[in-house]
């Protein structure tokens, strides 16, 4: 190694140490735990090595429910929130008068505490013996009977969770997309307009390809974020998510880590590794698809 190289590594060292200690080591550790049966963190002992942990959680009804919930959440909220954000950003960039006002309004959820928002959603959607939430009041107005969105049927709860998630992730996506739209030069629009392209065609053929890198970024981070959902569910349905049938994979990991005194780090690790593999797979698929559709 020549002097130049040695120096380069020296400068990289602080960052590398942090990455190694806080990222690489835990990752490897979790991977190892996931194969060690009945590991306890107190005594640091385990009874065997193998695939038992994986087999256990893959047969655990709670995990399967969490897996199902997470997938439903991802499949519904990522396209929905990205699509909505795109529509809103397109709208915002085509108006001039009250644009800043709307931008501020749309951005508010981003600076609001998740749990506080959860509470508001709970109040909006809840149905108790003494009072009805605003949503139920509306339903009643249209002659429909009240639904308990917070502790009622599964699909009602899933509906609230999806609405909540979309609402929470929208501001960031709108922010990114409006700035992406603003960076498309006016000349392209003028050129397309002179060429006789309709607004719809301009949007489809010019605007969307131009902002496709940002769209792609949002879809990838959207998938990752949605797979890691947890606090949203807690904000709405409390900490006992398993009995509410609203647990997510991260929620399951958390429950396994801290339930029953010492918890089950092995199971938690196995679940975390499964989540990791899922996210990695989806991201790889995204990357491959994007090669075809993301321009430059």
């Amino acid at each position, binding site marked *: 190694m020549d002097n130049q190289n040695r120096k380069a590594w020296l400068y990289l060292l602080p960052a590398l140490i942090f990455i190694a200690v806080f990222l690489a080591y835990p990752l490897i550790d979790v991977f190892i735990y996931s194969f060690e049966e009945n590991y306890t963190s107190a005594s640091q002992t385990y009874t065997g090595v193998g695939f038992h942990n994986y087999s256990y959680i893959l047969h655990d009804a709670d995990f399967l429910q969490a897996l199902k919930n997470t997938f439903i959440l991802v499949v519904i909220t990522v396209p929905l929130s990205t699509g909505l954000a795109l529509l809103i950003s397109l709208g915002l960039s085509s108006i001039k008068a009250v644009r800043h006002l709307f931008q501020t309004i749309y951005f508010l959820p981003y600076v609001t505490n998740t749990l506080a928002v959860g509470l508001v959603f709970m109040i909006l959607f809840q149905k108790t013996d003494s009072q009805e939430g605003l949503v139920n009041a509306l339903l009643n107005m249209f002659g429909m009977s009240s639904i308990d969105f917070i502790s009622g049927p599964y699909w009602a709860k899933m509906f609230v969770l999806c609405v909540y998630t979309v609402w929470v992730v929208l501001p960031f996506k709108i922010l990114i997309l409006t700035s992406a739209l603003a960076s498309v030069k006016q*000349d392209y629009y*003028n050129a*397309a307009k002179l060429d*006789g*392209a309709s607004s719809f065609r301009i949007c489809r053929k010019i605007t969307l*390809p*131009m902002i*496709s890198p940002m769209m792609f970024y949002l879809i990838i981070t959207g998938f990752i974020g949605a797979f890691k959902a947890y606090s949203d569910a807690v904000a709405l349905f409390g900490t006992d998510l398993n009995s509410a049938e609203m647990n997510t994979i991260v929620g399951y990991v958390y429950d396994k880590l801290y339930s029953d005194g010492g918890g089950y780090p092995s199971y938690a690790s196995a679940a975390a590794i499964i989540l990791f593999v899922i996210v990695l797979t989806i991201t790889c698929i995204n990357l491959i698809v994007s090669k075809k559709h993301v*321009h430059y």
Partner: protein
Amino acid sequence: MKVVLQNVTKKFPSRNKKEKKDVIAVNDFTFEIPDGKLIGLLGPSGCGKSTALNLISGLQKPTSGRIFFGDDDITAVPPEKRGVGLVFQNYALYPHLTVKQNITFPLENLKGKEKMTKADREKRAYEIAKLVQIDGLMERKPSELSGGQQQRVAIARALVKMPRVLLLDEPLSNLDARLRLQTREEIKRIQHETKITTVFVTHDQDEAMSISDLIVVMKEGIIQQIGKPQEVYSDPVNLFVAKFLGTPPIGVYNGRIEDGMLYIGDDAVGKTNLTENTELTVGIRPEGYILDSEGGLVCNLSGVEVMGRDISIVSTHPAAPDQVIRSIISSEKIVDTSKPTVRFKLKPGKVLLFDKTSGNRIRFEFI
């Protein structure tokens, strides 16, 4: 298709909140572009030439006045219905589309009777590409092209839908000097072959002079002079036009008429038919000097630049305080550089007189 602008004015609201005064980018334009001609809109930056182009394209609407293509009043017609092709200063090629897709894009937008099949569109695209000599680059993306090639693609895209009028907004400003010369010939050739009425915006007088059939010189939104390049050069209406055209620039001196004699500083350079004694501004084109030891104009010699065919004598004159005078003479003449001064006789047609305050041309003859 001839293009007529009739009393066209474009005002922009002032951004300055304290002083609510509109900015007049284009002030009462009236001129006619004859069918099939190439016309150059020439002026310093900020003179409203791009605005004038945008008014013709329809991207901006005039505050008042009318615009005609042929006999059609197109003032209220939206840009896409005017049948104009516009080449943008930075080309505005769609970066995510190939050259072919860029060129066929305007054709894909045609509707109704004009709708073309894919095969027809590609055929037309290849024809145009051949015209501008980029038919070998059709599958590339704009980022894989050189500046000159991008320029051609932009022209092809503007031409492909057979516009009635072709508009070029500073089309050469992003090219290097050599390519600029080459491309302006190219534009001239393409215009001749297609015979499309073309409007060309530039701040480079050299460019405008070399390729335009007619040039329109503008200053602060007002047309100064319209004419054939040579006419405008040799017969400018005012000092601004005289100074704006020509390289090296015209030499400008403080002068006066005394008993009919024209003085530059203290040098008497010739008897004129002007009778009134007055102060005025004298402009002398670089080619208007004749080396002559008896000549009336005495300049302080500062150097000689040999440019091959010609030589350029660099000198100063007390009556032209802020300017270095460049005079172009044939290289066969020999300049004695050992002397501190150089004397010139002046060619009568190359000496122009201007009013001291208004800058307007004063016509005269040497007698």
